[in-house]
């Protein structure tokens, strides 16, 4: 089951920034398992990229590193709780 949080997957790839389709092919996951809103993020000139994968179980862990995508909370007054 996809979940909204999903996981962040980092991978390394030579050449120019891949498209989401190319990222899906590189990771060998269906394109539909990647978040189009997240797209492909560049990790600062290192040839590393990351995507948001909505179904972690689809990934062969040798294709990319998996990181958590935790929720966060604003640190203001907890009104209306």
């Amino acid at each position, binding site marked *: 089951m996809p979940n909204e949080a999903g996981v962040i997957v980092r991978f390394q790839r030579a050449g120019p920034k891949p498209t989401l389709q190319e990222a899906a092919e590189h990771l060998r996951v269906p394109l539909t398992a990647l978040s189009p809103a997240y797209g492909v993020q560049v990790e600062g000139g290192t040839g590393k990229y990351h995507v948001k994968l909505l179904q972690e179980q689809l990934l062969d862990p040798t294709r990319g590193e998996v990181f*958590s995508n935790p929720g966060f909370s604003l*640190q203001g007054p907890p*009104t209306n709780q």
Partner: protein
Amino acid sequence: MVAVRVLVTVPDTSDVLDAARMFAGGVASSQRTQSFADRLDLDLLPPSLVIDRSYAPTPLKLTTATQLLASAPQADLSGPGSFVIRGFMDSDDLHAAHDLTDSSGCPRVFSDPAFGLVPAAFGEPPIGTVLDVSRQLGTGRLGRLGMDGTGVAIALVDNGINLSFLRSRGLQPSLDYHSSWSPNQTVTPGSAPIDHGSMCAYDALIAAPRATLLDFAVARTTRQGGSAMDGFLSDALIAFGRLLMLMTLPDDERPFRSLVVNNSWAVFSPAWDFPVGRPGRYLDNPNHPFHAAVSNLTGAGADVLFAAGNCGDAAPDGRCGFGVGQARITGANAYAEVITVAGVDVNRTLTGYSSPGPGTIDPQKPDIAAFTHFKGSEAFGSGQPDAGTSAACPVMAGVVAALRSRYPFQNGSSARTPSAIKSFVLASAVKPAGVTAFSLEFGNGVVDTGMFENPGFS
């Protein structure tokens, strides 16, 4: 037998009045304390009372108070209960002493209980106002020094800004619409519902009223004040990526000279992360991609600030899910590159909700304390404080933006790197009373701009 501290009321006899006038008149303490007890009529006092000679007989009636400064004071004008003095007596005698009454039948001996400063907690009224914060930050002086945020952008990675609200609060905010961003395309920058982000914007503008705001509305909350979970890290990751693109634009194409990034958010529960032992965790893992995003942004010259969080010992937010002994400053809030901000009230007392260090990644957290829990934006309703380390963080971000308006980031200048600016503002901080070194509550101290005029760099 235990000595207990008591307060005792006495009449305005000439002896008491003379003793009180010696305090009021500034008689040297040695002479004063020698004379004080001698001047009191011991018949008026409980038998075992030892008078505290350091405590001035304090008038309890207006007529008595006026006699303290009169040129020809008159005794016996106000009668019983005119003054209160302090002393110590045996606890064994206390019961009998409580039966003592004055001529009007009123009790004369009262307890003098100890009290402690109650740290500010959510739900409690504001302590001080935005004017107090402004005074503490020296914003008038900063303005005269040209430190008002001019040329600096403050990105608020939050739940959106409402510009009309800020204007209604007397501000003249400037928003860079085109550089702003939200994953929610239906929210126009500057037009979010009045909420947390507007509070943060208001607070950032206290010290940097001429800064340009960038609205990065990544939190998805639709409930005022936030819900248990307001967004996902992945949204903040995109925001940081976009900010990095802005920072890497050539100087003449970038719409600001310096960038300050405010993050008044944190993870409230370790249950939201991968389980302990699994690689890829966020809370204590410097290898997480978000660390690279933050590191790249500070490396490009942006000053990044994070709130310490609201899981303090005295009055934690009810949403905190950290166990006893677990570090509560976690993830990005604990990165060495960022300035992590604890919360104090305008009296420089730590707020009960401010998360103490250490941090999970850099143990030397928080870095500095800034002001919160004051009457400011009233974004949460009339009379409601700007509260949480959420408010302290943008107050501090405004101070950094003010400094940056005179010392913007400059490629190649080692004095103007985010790391150097961070070191300077931490060195400028003032230790609160009783604190002499780095502390896990206040970090390096409370923000202070006294050194900004001559920072020692150019």
